[in-house]
């Protein structure tokens, strides 16, 4: 009868926890604040917990998930067919915008931005093991550099995209240089502080950034020089005029999706090469043991800096893209919670695993969008999912398998 006792205790605890917050509702009623008592939710919560504890639901669920066949994407057969899979996914991704609804394409574009951010942060956190809680700062730098350059100098998206990445990388180096010698969590808090500083400066430097209102009317990317707007800018031509078709803002949505896809592919290509290069190995080694690295002649600061700057660079690219997609950016778009979500993507994906990061990014961005209709419970569920996922798969969706350079074993070598 131990379980009955624990179930009672758990139920009692639940009552204590929920009574003041779910059972009594504060209502500001004009001048006075009053309480409206509603014990239903408390009762339900208590009952649920009681039953769950009594039946030891957690253990049962655990048993069920244990029993589920785990689809291991990293299995040998998968990696053998990886090229085939990649091709299939790519083709699907290319067809997608032409068959899906406008809303779906929009969400997909949004998700791709997070894929990019996740892949970028994965370099810093997953590969190099540097906990960066201010990643969003570089995203902001990229976004604002495009917004400002286009606003003040009329530079086009394609010119600003690399500049945005470069600016962000420069910021990464400037920040990284002094702080990368900090250990573990101190680095985390400094980057967090730096992220906040960037946001606050953007918020307060009205004369340049328009303060909390942010920058409006940021130009969209052009497609081979053609604008995607309804009305051409002075001297420009729009896509629909060029082809002599009626304007439909759907073209812009599709074009943006394709650009995002392109950027993601580029990112994947670069990162995939990098992890196979000496610098990729050095990142991992550094994550494992900095002291050993130094003893072997690797310069930790430089190596960390390269990871930091590269991660920042991708955030900058993503930022520039984000600004051009939405047309509006405000400092509030770059709060800590963004960094947290991107970090969650990396960890949930399985640190250092790229397919994992992509899956996690899609999961964490598309799911909340799909759940918009439960808007009240949306974020509640989001938070809960984050916790449960961590408990369910602490090693992430797809634990990292960095491509390993294999040495044929002796027998193989002799063949």
């Amino acid at each position, binding site marked *: 009868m131990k379980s009955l006792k624990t179930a009672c205790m758990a139920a009692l605890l639940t009552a204590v926890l929920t009574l003041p917050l779910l059972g009594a509702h504060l209502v500001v009623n004009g001048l006075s604040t009053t309480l409206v008592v509603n014990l239903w939710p408390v009762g339900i919560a208590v009952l649920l917990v009681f039953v769950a504890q009594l039946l030891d639901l957690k253990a049962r669920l655990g048993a069920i998930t244990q029993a589920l066949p785990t689809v291991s994407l990293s299995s040998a057969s998968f990696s053998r067919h990886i090229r085939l899979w990649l091709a299939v996914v790519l083709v699907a991704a290319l067809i997608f915008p032409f068959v899906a609804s406008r809303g779906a394409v929009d969400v997909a574009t949004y998700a791709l931005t997070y894929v990019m951010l996740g892949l970028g942060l994965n370099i810093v956190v997953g590969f190099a093991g540097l906990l960066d809680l201010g990643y969003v700062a570089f995203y902001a730098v990229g976004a604002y550099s495009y917004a400002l350059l286009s606003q003040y100098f009329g530079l086009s998206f394609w010119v600003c995209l690399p500049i945005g990445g470069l600016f962000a990388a420069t910021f990464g180096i400037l920040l990284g240089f002094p702080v990368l010698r900090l250990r573990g969590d101190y680095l985390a808090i400094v980057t967090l*502080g730096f992220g906040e500083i960037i946001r606050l400066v953007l918020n307060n430097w009205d004369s340049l950034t328009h303060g909390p209102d942010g920058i409006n009317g940021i130009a969209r990317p052009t497609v081979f020089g053609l604008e995607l707007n309804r009305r051409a800018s002075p001297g420009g031509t729009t896509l629909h005029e060029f082809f002599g078709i009626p304007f439909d803002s759907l073209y812009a949505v599709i074009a943006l999706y394709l650009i995002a896809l392109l950027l993601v592919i580029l990112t994947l290509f670069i990162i995939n090469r990098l992890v196979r290069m000496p610098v990729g190995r050095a990142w991992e080694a550094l994550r494992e043991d900095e002291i050993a690295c130094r003893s072997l002649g690797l310069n930790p600061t430089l190596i960390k800096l390269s990871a930091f700057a590269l991660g920042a660079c991708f955030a900058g690219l993503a930022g520039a893209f984000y600004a051009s997609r939405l047309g509006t950016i405000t400092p509030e778009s770059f709060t800590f919670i963004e960094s947290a979500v991107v970090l969650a993507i990396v960890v949930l994906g399985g640190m250092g695993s790229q397919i994992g990061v992509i899956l996690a990014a899609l999961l964490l961005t598309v799911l909340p969008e799909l759940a918009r209709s439960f808007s009240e419970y949306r974020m509640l569920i989001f938070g809960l999912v984050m916790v449960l996922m961590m408990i369910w798969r602490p090693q992430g969706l797809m634990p990292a398998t960095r491509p390993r350079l294999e040495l044929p074993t002796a027998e193989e070598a002799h063949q």
Partner: protein
Amino acid sequence: MNDLLPVLAQQVINGLSLGSIYALIAIGYTMVYGIIGMINFAHGEIYMIGAYVGVVTITALGAASGAMPLALVLSGALIIAVVVTAAYGWTVERVAYRPLRGSPRLVPLISAIGMSIFLQNYVQLGQGARDISVPPLLPGNLFEIDVEGFPVSLSLTRALIIFATLALMIALTLYISRSRMGRACRACSQDMGMANLLGIDTNRVISFTFVVGAILAAVGGVLIGLSIGKINPFIGFVAGIKAFTAAVLGGIGSIPGAMLGGVLLGLTETFASAFLPTEYKDVVAFGLLVLILLFRPTGLLGTPDVEKV
């Protein structure tokens, strides 16, 4: 020059009361970090819950009897808030972190962020997303001195904040340094597994840490409800980040450090508002953090961690 003195005095009072709240919350971060090496991002939410439970109880007590003496209402609110919030602290650890013991370092961090989002929205579900106002229950000042035409004042609520913080801090420091539980905390913060091998019940120590952190945060929450008079489900987030900053500033893991960091942060913000455009106060605060860490990589009172090779 004469005019400056009363202004400074007033600003110091302002800064101290602001910093005290940071300090109260910072303790929770510092203790948890010290022991399980994890940034408990949900701690700010614990503080927010403390504030809500406080306001709910105040309203309930006030509504039930109408004429209950204020002191009784307040102490009742404080006690209930402390109990319920402590229960939250305990439960959060039990549910969201304990199953992750032994996982890679970032895993509990994400779980904590998830918990923070969850709690924020859970309170929103129960209490709505809107501001809840608390009428000024303790109006009036502890003192108001007129210094050459400039009134320097300390309101009752702010006085309460400062004194409560001081008292709790002293009590906690004594407890940690004198009690067996305190010693167990020190052992756990160094090497949890080894502490376990010495016969120390590490799970109890961890729970204790979360409960103590929650208690202090609850006190902070109730006091903030009284003094600021406006709460919403999001107050925990900003306060949490600030308090965490304070904890790091003072040297994370160190309880006096959290106190020092909190007060320092409060004073910095206040003086930055006073002598620069107000809007830049947070920039100055975070700037200070970065600066201090550059020169003292483990915070003001943190012990530099040597790794002997």
